[in-house]
């Protein structure tokens, strides 16, 4: 690192603290021109905080940041943007009511010589950036009508408007489907050749090793190591992130498969999907894979009564049941741990205790019509916290201050409390760090061992392959393939996820 001109971002001994949240401690960080630099660490390690300090959304308490050699103390948000720095947040921060073009050009609207907005130029500009990302989204469409994957692309396109020299991406692929991810990676590779510097925050090992040159690992607000990616084996990386060694990624164990718990026949979800048929046995973990927009969540929501369905019957333990609302589903022993847990599964400003007992309050802890037996409630919550190893200081901690993985466990705790027998996890590990993922896998396996049936919806093939007994592949709203995990492999699953037909034949021909 002799060449000082080549260091585009330099952070020196940065310290920052928030009330109740882990801080950055005298952290050093350097990014060299033209590299793709991965930033790794568990949730709460300080990755996002560091990036927000670099783009001046937060101000450090101690230390110095230099962008292109200039001290960031003198630069505001606009100032660092002028130096070519652009951050794409984890939460997309788009404006749902405005069109794609309006969102992409927000803050940089082209104007006519009268000072009014030049709509034509705006559309052209937006189209140009989307084309660069090989996307064909209609720029006149309102953002609220786009899929999550498309929204992510719009957010990326917006950051390109400033023609940045340095792009900071905070988990961009968490929202992209597999096909779009591929397009996105080839865009990054192209842009890198043109001299773009990228800081890439990700939880996905596969991507890091595919597109990154160097990597910095953070833990508890400190830097652990910076290394070239190809000199750092995956196992070491995980070790540095966790500070402890994980020998086995997923703790799958053989569980005897019992009687049928759930049968779904001729299900047509209202939003997307047709003629879904499958069953789920006790002790079984059934994976549902497919790219974003394949209709996985829609199936789960339709079964749970969260969305209306066009038709279809659902049987629990061989008996047909009527499920029209989530309340019906809960009564039948179903549980859905939704993808957007913060919106749909939790009351953020309430305590861990309140959240865990929410669904079972009436059934278990009410003395009179509405009298809550607090002692009993607290006792039960404490047991749940212990059983699930929920990392919370007290039962009264507000859940919004807990990490993503811990929040996920609180949602599960809620369903455990209400004695569910069929669990549907929708992308439970999305945006969760390695340690948190491990805990969730363990939890899923435990549930299966206790005789529950588990539906595990995921986009990450690795976890599905090592966790599930059976895998259903969805494409375009239909189940196009059922695979037995023991008799398949990664390539075959991916083949079907991408909409392929007849893997054996294709493999033989090539």
């Amino acid at each position, binding site marked *: 690192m002799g060449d000082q001109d080549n260091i585009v971002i330099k952070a020196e001994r940065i310290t920052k603290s928030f009330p109740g949240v882990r801080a950055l401690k005298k952290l050093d960080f350097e990014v060299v021109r033209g590299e793709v630099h991965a930033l790794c660490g568990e949730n709460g390690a300080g990755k996002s905080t560091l990036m927000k300090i670099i783009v001046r959304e937060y101000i450090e308490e101690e230390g110095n940041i230099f962008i292109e050699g200039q001290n960031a103390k003198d630069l505001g948000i606009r100032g660092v943007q002028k130096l070519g720095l652009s*951050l794409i947040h984890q939460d997309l921060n788009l404006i749902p009511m405005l069109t794609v073009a309006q969102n992409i050009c*927000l803050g*940089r609207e082209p104007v006519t010589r009268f000072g009014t907005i030049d709509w034509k130029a705006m559309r052209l500009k937006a189209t140009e950036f989307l084309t660069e990302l090989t996307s064909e989204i209609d720029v006149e469409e309102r953002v609220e009508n786009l899929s999550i994957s498309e929204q992510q692309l719009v957010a990326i396109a917006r950051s390109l408007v400033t023609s940045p020299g340095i792009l900071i991406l905070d988990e961009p692929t968490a929202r992209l489907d597999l096909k779009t991810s591929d397009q996105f990676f080839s865009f990054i590779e192209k842009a890198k050749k043109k001299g773009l510097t990228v800081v890439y925050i990700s939880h996905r090992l596969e991507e890091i090793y595919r597109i990154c040159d160097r990597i910095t690992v953070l833990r508890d607000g400190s830097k652990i190591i910076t290394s070239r990616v190809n000199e750092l084996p995956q196992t070491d990386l995980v070790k540095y992130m966790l500070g402890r060694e994980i020998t086995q990624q997923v703790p799958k164990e053989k569980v005897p498969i019992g009687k049928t718990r759930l049968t779904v026949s001729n299900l047509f979800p209202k939003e997307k999907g047709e003629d879904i048929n499958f069953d789920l046995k006790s002790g079984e973990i059934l994976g549902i894979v497919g790219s974003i927009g394949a209709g996985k969540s829609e199936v789960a929501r339709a079964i749970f009564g*969260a969305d209306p369905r066009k038709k279809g019957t659902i049987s629990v333990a061989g008996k047909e049941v009527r499920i029209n609302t989530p309340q019906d589903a809960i009564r039948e022993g179903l549980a859905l741990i939704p993808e957007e847990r913060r919106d*749909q599964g939790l009351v953020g400003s309430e305590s861990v205790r309140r959240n865990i007992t929410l669904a079972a309050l009436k059934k278990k802890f009410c003395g009179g019509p509405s009298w809550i037996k607090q002692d009993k409630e607290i006792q039960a919550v404490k047991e749940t916290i212990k059983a699930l190893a929920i990392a919370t200081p007290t039962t009264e901690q507000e859940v919004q201050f807990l990490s993503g993985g811990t929040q996920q466990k609180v949602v599960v705790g809620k369903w455990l409390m209400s004695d569910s027998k069929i669990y549907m996890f929708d992308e439970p590990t999305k945006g969760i760090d390695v340690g948190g993922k491990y805990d969730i896998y363990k939890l899923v396996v435990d549930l299966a061992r206790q005789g529950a049936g588990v539906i595990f919806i995921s986009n990450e093939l690795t976890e599905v392959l090592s966790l599930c007994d059976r895998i259903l592949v969805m494409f375009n709203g239909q189940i196009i393939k059922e695979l037995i995990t023991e008799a398949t492999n990664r390539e075959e699953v991916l083949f079907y996820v991408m909409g392929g037909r007849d893997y054996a034949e294709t493999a033989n021909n090539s």
Partner: protein
Amino acid sequence: MQKQPITPKDIINNYGATFAFVIAIIFFSFTSMGFFSGQNLQNILVQSTSLGICAFGLTIVLISGEIDLSYAGVIGLVGAVLAGMLKEGHSIGLTTLVCMAIGLGTGLLNAILIVVLNLPSFLASVAVMFICMGAERIYNQGITTWIRDPEILSIVQAQVGPLPAGVLYLFVLFILCWFLLTQTRAGQYIQALGDNIDAVKEVGVRAQLIKFMIFVVAGLIFAFAGYVETLRIGGAVMYAGKQLMLSVLAACFLGTATFKAGKANFPGTLIGAFFLYTLLSGFTGLGMKFYLVPVAQGLILIISVAISSVRRGKIEQVQF
């Protein structure tokens, strides 16, 4: 991205309130005494002016995701000062300046309380409303003051072509507001603020400054509404703003039920203002007692808020 085909249901959903407006006009033409006379229709327009102007001020604030109820106080205070200063013999020029200064002052006060000190806009603006009502009472001692100079009254009452000047102000202000919102950068940011303020901050726009300016501009518009209202009536009646309080809210929320998926918008507010007086005028023609007017307005407000909430609810995903 596939375009959804437009179904009849969408049309009813999007323009339902506009249809209701047309149906109401037809209904009253047949049933209500003298409803469809040119005089009555002009009355509806004239009565809607100050209400409409004031509702535009509120609409800007609503679009940005806040609320400002101070107009109910500002209108009365401006009216009292206008009539009072003229009675004391001050020139109309100076008086007009003072009236606008009141709007600027209350707007700044709201902006400081809500944007700088971060108080909830509902409470802060209600407090400012009461302060203005108190000031009005102190200034005019609770006495109605009339303005008799026809030249001054003609500022609002003069016929310009087929319409009184006041109605013209309403339309000019409408075009200005609509243009600002849809054709300028500032307008984009105001819309965006109401949806997702973080997104606006993130692109380096000074969101707080824009919000500050919104309250100041709204204050000025409220003052102008008070000015027009006073000259339309020809004097300052005690607590004139209070009379308009419910109507302005109802007009804005009728507007949200008219266009644009349950969001406040200028064309909607304009139609909402006309619609409101059409209904009131129609019901009066049918023999509704004057003391039932607030009841009718309250019902209209509830219905329009309900319509726009249902429509928002349809767009957002069902949550559980």
